[in-house]
């Protein structure tokens, strides 16, 4: 905009030869930059274009590629080297692969569905993958995983020596697609001091999940509020995540044993969701309940049990180890989750090793899986971990591997009572409950089936639907997903 006559032109927009940039805010040498000159001649332009195009691939970022040089490199996905249990076994696997001329490359990190699918779709999958066993059925049905039966036979692996429920979880149409790499049981954990203050003991006779009325009453006694805030959860049923456990305790199941028929709208399932949602409603509703739950310092010294923020709840076995490490002084009680008849129920989950379709080193992958899940490797790793844990005065609470023989040896030879009765009792319970393990059967819809029942729980918790409405909707979604996924299968 031209300045009116008699006025100084505005600083902005004042440009001239050699003054391409606005003045004042740049150093003088920058303000005196000459105007750019066009390059001369087609040759120079062409050369510039070619140089740019040639340089582009050099600056490109890697996509889903797992390894650059695949010839002698054996790659993994979904596995981290978090503790001695991992590092010790990886050392063994490295030694087992060395004679085959393989260099082991661990791509650390949790299993990522997008990364895995992209790698498989691009024809560049890892040689082995570690993932949640509940996902394996879905991938197997689509042909993303290779069956392991032949490989296990060649490696002389007896699957009878592994936890039956874990093997079932990875078996589709009689073919095994994954070998267990962990075995997470669930038991009740209790804040004994909270229970004592309320006039109860810290056992599963006091926190009895088979007595539904009693549990509701106890929950009301243990919960604590301050004004409109919930400051202590009396009993946390841990839904949606442990919903299959409540269904089982109520005599039902989410899926038929063959993994083809969803049973989400069956009466035991509806009852289980109605009851567990009511437990949460009794404590002020999902909003307050989850807000408190989200504020827990779960892995710190000020965790929910140390700060008396929860009375009792079912939890995975690894959390006993976390407590033993971060707050061994916590007043811990433990017990079994029981079904309506008073029998212990153990909902198990965990990860497993599988071989993706397109793996370049299938034989080596078999050797790797055999080594990682072998009794020898597990026991050696558990010994290393136990020494490490004890060296900094924490409590070693055992390891649960999915390998029956390894578990037996670890329990009898590696684990020793720590002198902290609460932790020793919890560990014994965890070993005792292993045999009662059950899991949701393997199914071709995998992730979609799991999401269907979880979303149903969430819709109920958020107050959008009644349990029956939510589960009827979920039944439709789940069955449709199963039918589509099972098309073309026997």
């Amino acid at each position, binding site marked *: 905009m031209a300045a009116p006559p008699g006025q100084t032109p*505005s600083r902005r927009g004042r440009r001239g030869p050699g003054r391409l940039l606005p003045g004042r805010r740049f150093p003088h040498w920058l303000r005196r930059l000459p105007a750019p000159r066009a390059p001369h001649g087609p040759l120079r332009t062409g050369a510039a274009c070619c140089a740019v195009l040639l340089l582009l691939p050099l600056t490109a970022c890697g996509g889903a590629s797992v390894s650059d040089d695949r010839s002698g490199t054996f790659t993994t996905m979904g596995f981290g080297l978090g503790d001695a249990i991992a590092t010790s076994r990886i050392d063994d696997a490295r030694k087992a692969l060395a004679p085959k001329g393989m260099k082991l490359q661990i791509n650390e990190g949790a299993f990522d569905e*997008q990364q895995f699918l992209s790698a498989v779709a691009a024809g560049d999958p890892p040689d082995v993958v570690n993932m949640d066993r509940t996902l394996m059925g879905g991938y197997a049905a689509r042909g993303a995983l290779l069956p392991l039966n032949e490989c296990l036979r060649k490696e002389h692996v007896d699957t009878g020596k592994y936890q039956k429920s874990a093997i079932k979880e990875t078996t589709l149409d009689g073919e095994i697609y994954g070998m267990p790499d962990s075995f997470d049981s669930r038991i009740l954990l209790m804040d004994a001091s909270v229970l004592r203050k309320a006039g109860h003991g810290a056992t599963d006779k006091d926190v009895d999940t088979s007595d539904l009325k009693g549990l509701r009453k106890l929950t009301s006694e243990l919960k604590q509020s301050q004004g409109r805030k919930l400051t202590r959860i009396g009993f946390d049923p841990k839904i949606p*995540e442990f919903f299959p456990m409540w269904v089982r305790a109520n005599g039902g199941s989410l899926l038929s044993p063959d993994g083809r028929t969803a049973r989400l709208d069956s009466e035991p399932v509806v009852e289980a969701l109605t009851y567990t949602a009511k437990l949460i409603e009794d404590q002020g509703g999902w909003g307050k309940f989850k807000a408190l739950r989200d504020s827990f310092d779960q892995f710190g010294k000020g965790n929910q049990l140390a700060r008396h923020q929860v009375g009792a709840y079912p939890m995975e076995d690894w959390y006993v180890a976390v407590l033993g490490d971060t707050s061994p002084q916590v007043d811990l009680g433990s017990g079994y989750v029981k079904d309506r008849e008073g029998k212990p129920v153990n909902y198990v989950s965990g990860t497993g090793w599988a071989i993706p379709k397109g793996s370049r080193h299938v034989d080596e992958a078999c050797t790797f899986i055999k080594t990682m899940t072998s009794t020898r490797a597990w026991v050696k790793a558990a010994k290393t971990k136990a020494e490490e844990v004890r060296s900094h005065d924490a409590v070693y609470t055992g390891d649960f591997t999915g390998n029956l023989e390894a578990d037996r040896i670890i329990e009898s030879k590696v684990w020793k009572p720590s002198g902290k009765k609460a932790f020793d009792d919890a560990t014994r319970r965890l070993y005792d409950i292993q045999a009662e393990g059950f899991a949701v059967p393997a199914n071709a819809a995998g992730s979609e089936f799991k999401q269907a029942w979880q979303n149903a729980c969430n819709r109920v918790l958020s107050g959008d639907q009644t349990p029956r409405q939510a589960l009827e909707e979920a039944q439709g979604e789940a069955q449709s997903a199963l039918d589509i996924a099972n098309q073309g299968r026997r």
Partner: protein
Amino acid sequence: MPSPTDEARRDEAGRTGTAARTGTAATTGTAGRTGGAPVPGAAPADRRERARRWRASWRRSETRAAYGFLSPWIFGFVVLTAGPMIATLYLSFTNYDGISEPRGVGMENYRQLFEDPSVAKSLMNTLVFTVLRVPLSMAVALALAMLLLRVGRATGFFRTLFYLPVMTPSVAVGILFLLLFNGNVGLINTVLGFVGIDGPSWTTDGDWIKPGLVLTTLWSVGSTVIIYLAALRNVPQELYEAAEIDGVGRRQAFVHVTLPQISGALFFTLIVNTIASLQTFTEAYTAFFGSANSQTYSNDAALFYVVHLFQQAFQYMHLGYASALAWLLFLVILAITLVQARLSKRFVYYEGEER
């Protein structure tokens, strides 16, 4: 140095608005300036003339240099954007699952879009989020830019300060949302408690999840602030002086001088923020679907369209259907952007434009 005739030609070709209004064939800015690519349906003589002009233009070293510098973007666009777009268009007519060979299913995926209740739900969530977020973020950014304009020598410092949060990874912002908006111990409800307000359950109440996420996204309003600040600094001071002489108050000066003068920047940020909002994914996914804390609890109120698309593609392996979802989103964004562009003709003022 460009010749005067070149300048005249560029001026003529560049006045698309005028050309459109007078009924002549409007060409796009770039095409017009480079002589225009052959247009299908144009008369052969006209096409030949255009081709001749394009060749003449190409013979100029300036044009070649321009294409030389543009080539990385052109290469990137073809390989990383246009290519995948064409691929997804093809895949949207197949049952591709990422593993087996894609098999044609005709219009089945598109038919399914209308039967899938999650599509309507997620689209509605996304539109509501956009309607809440875009005006609010623009208003906040403008207010901050106006403040920055008045802080004098400290402008540089505050400009940096406001821009820093933009560099925070979106995943971290998603986790931050859960911490700040926790109903029990979150900072937001704690502050509200000080003034006697019992804050809502931001992370679990379906009515409050989207407003909470909108407030969280204000965290990265810095880039819009910078754009507005640049625009505000370009408003000629003489206009304010003239307005003052005419007895115009501050508020009126803002409405009748500032806003029209920065309307170009406002329009640009409106388009960019609308597109970004319609593609919202990371914060919602991290807070409600993807992080360790939220893998089992999700809330339908946070099911945005791209989250649904992502789940279909990578969790359920329905890549064919997800491709159809992607194309629907493309069409929705295109329609909204075209409406905004059409409306902009009435509200946006460009200096030097004939009106």
